[in-house]
């Protein structure tokens, strides 16, 4: 979801620069009024953003037996974007997500309802779930509950809703205010 600028690496990469991040550390250094910047928050957001996303995925997968699930996972993932928005303002948030939130909501809803009908093809009832256990080399036993796929739909839907809220109640209103101020 984060767009990473594909920087073509130079012919001879210096050993001192190979681990420099491809993106700037500070999100919006060049876009906002310097007096309004919150350096600490921007740095924290930069560090936390991937961590929060990974945590949201953990919640999504843990949902069947532990605390979590598609709904809370989606909300947490949404919070990652809220954090970026708070730190970076509308300039950043709109550049982070290239997918339209309504499309995300629509895809999530479609996946969730479609998955609830899939058990019919295997002779089950609507919304029934099954448990499969695989042994994967290196990782050991993996237990997959089919309700996970429904949760993925819910995850996308909720993430889409949060992004849509950010867009309509956050950046859109900011843009309106900015437009009024410019006049």
């Amino acid at each position, binding site marked *: 979801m984060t767009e990473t600028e594909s920087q073509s690496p130079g012919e001879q990469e210096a050993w001192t620069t190979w681990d420099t991040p491809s993106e700037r550390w500070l999100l919006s250094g060049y876009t906002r009024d310097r007096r309004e910047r919150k350096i600490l928050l921007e740095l924290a957001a930069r560090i936390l953003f991937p961590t929060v996303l990974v945590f949201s995925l953990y919640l999504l997968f843990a949902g069947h037996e532990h605390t979590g699930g598609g709904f809370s996972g989606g909300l947490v993932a949404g919070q990652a974007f809220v954090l970026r928005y708070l730190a970076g303002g509308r300039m950043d948030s709109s550049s982070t997500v290239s997918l339209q939130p309504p499309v995300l909501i*629509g895809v999530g809803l*479609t996946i969730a*309802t479609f998955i609830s009908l899939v058990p019919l093809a295997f002779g089950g*009832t609507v919304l029934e779930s099954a448990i499969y256990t695989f042994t994967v080399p290196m990782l050991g036993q993996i237990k997959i509950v089919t309700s996970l796929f429904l949760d993925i739909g819910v995850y996308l839907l909720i993430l889409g809703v949060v992004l849509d809220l950010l867009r309509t109640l956050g950046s859109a209103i900011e843009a309106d205010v900015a437009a009024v101020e410019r006049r």
Partner: protein
Amino acid sequence: MTALVALPVLLPLMAAGLSLAFGRFADIQRVLGLVVLGAIIVNAALLLYVADVHGPIVLQLGGWPAPLGITLIADRLAALLLLVSSVVTFAVLIYSIGQRVADYGRGTSSTTFHPIYLMLCAGVSLAYLTGDLFNLFVAFEIMLSSSYVLITRRTTATRVRPGMTYTIVSLTSSILFLTVIALVYAATGTVNLADLAQRVSELPDGLQSSLGLLMTIVFGVKAAMVPLHFWLPDSYPNAPAPITAVFAGLLTKVGIYAMIRTQTLVFQHESTWQLMLAIALLTMIVGALGALAQDDLNRMLSFLLVSHIGYMLFGLGVYDIAGLTGVILYVVHHITVQATLFLVSGLITRHTGTVALSRMGGLAKAAPLVAVLFSIPALTLSGVPPFSGFVAKLALLQAGVDAGTWAAYGVAGGAVLTSLLTLYAVARVWSRAFWGRPQEPAGDPDPSDELVVGTGTTSPAMMVASGVLAATSVLIAVAAGPLADISGRAAVDLMHGETYRTAVLGGGAGG
């Protein structure tokens, strides 16, 4: 087989998702909506057939058994109302697509309308099919949240206020509903309707009647029964015609359905329900008198809607098999007729450019087809003999007279009076709008909304949709015999909850 019960809910939800994802492709959205709603008509017809021949179809979601899991059930009443409702939602979709194409051209897509409308349909289906109280609440919420969007879509400053009234009243009643569910759960430990039937009857009498009354108030707000009807004539006329049509046709009737379901299955009464009879009489008279005082066509129709809710409360108040048969017939007839009337009102305002009756005239000459389309549902609503309204009203009046109490006689008299007042109200529309000197169409007062579009043009799709609904209401009269039979059987099911209970709890198609 049992999956048929889930499809009327899941298909529109899935279509809503797809249509949101394909927000930029107008034609895909339209085809998707029409195909899915068309499929639901077929689905509902199948459900009705199976439910009538083999008894209720029960689906335990996820295979979890009844009092714990979520139950969907299609019995005769649910399937019948689902069938009628799906015909209405289908026709209204055709109408609104026609209106959109006529106003904005074929290529203009609307990102919100189709997904939200399909969500509304899913909510309506779920409300009919759900077998537990909490999911009834969920269904109402799906339905109402969609309706908040539809009523405030493309809103203007003047329309925000009625939209707010609608939203706040609905939210308040939702909170009350949730409170009642919590109380019922605290008292009985279950929210499954079939299970509740047993548990509630074991509660002390006082507790039973107070829970029953609270529930009546909750659904009374949704159904617009009289002391709680104030929001309806203010808010409904402020939505575009097709949206008002589906609100008037379905939302209030879903409230009535919920009332019938809970009052027969969960809270059983011994005899004629005096309070309900009094409310029924009040609803009829207040609504009809309100209608006579209006100059705004849509407000008048909204008051007539309130007034005719009284008939359904009347049948419920009589509380025997004949009364409930009458209610079911009346609901079926009223869903189609009220939706048709609002659609036709949309056609009328397109010709006149105003909703004020005093500024209309000569439409019978200018738009003869609209005149025919208006006259059929108008006569049906007022209960003139060959039409379906007469059949339904006759069934109710007979039930009232057979009940033999003075209260029932009184309300039956009020029903006849209301019928006459309705006839007077629609005749007034006829003489103002259709007769007289043709008026120059008024200009569009606010081109930014879709409320009154006085362009004078109507697309064939809009006429066909209104025609299909009008024809449906005529068809109901033609098929009155079989329909009355099936309503009678549904009423017997309602009065003897055994079939419902055993279908859900014992020997149901679980797992």
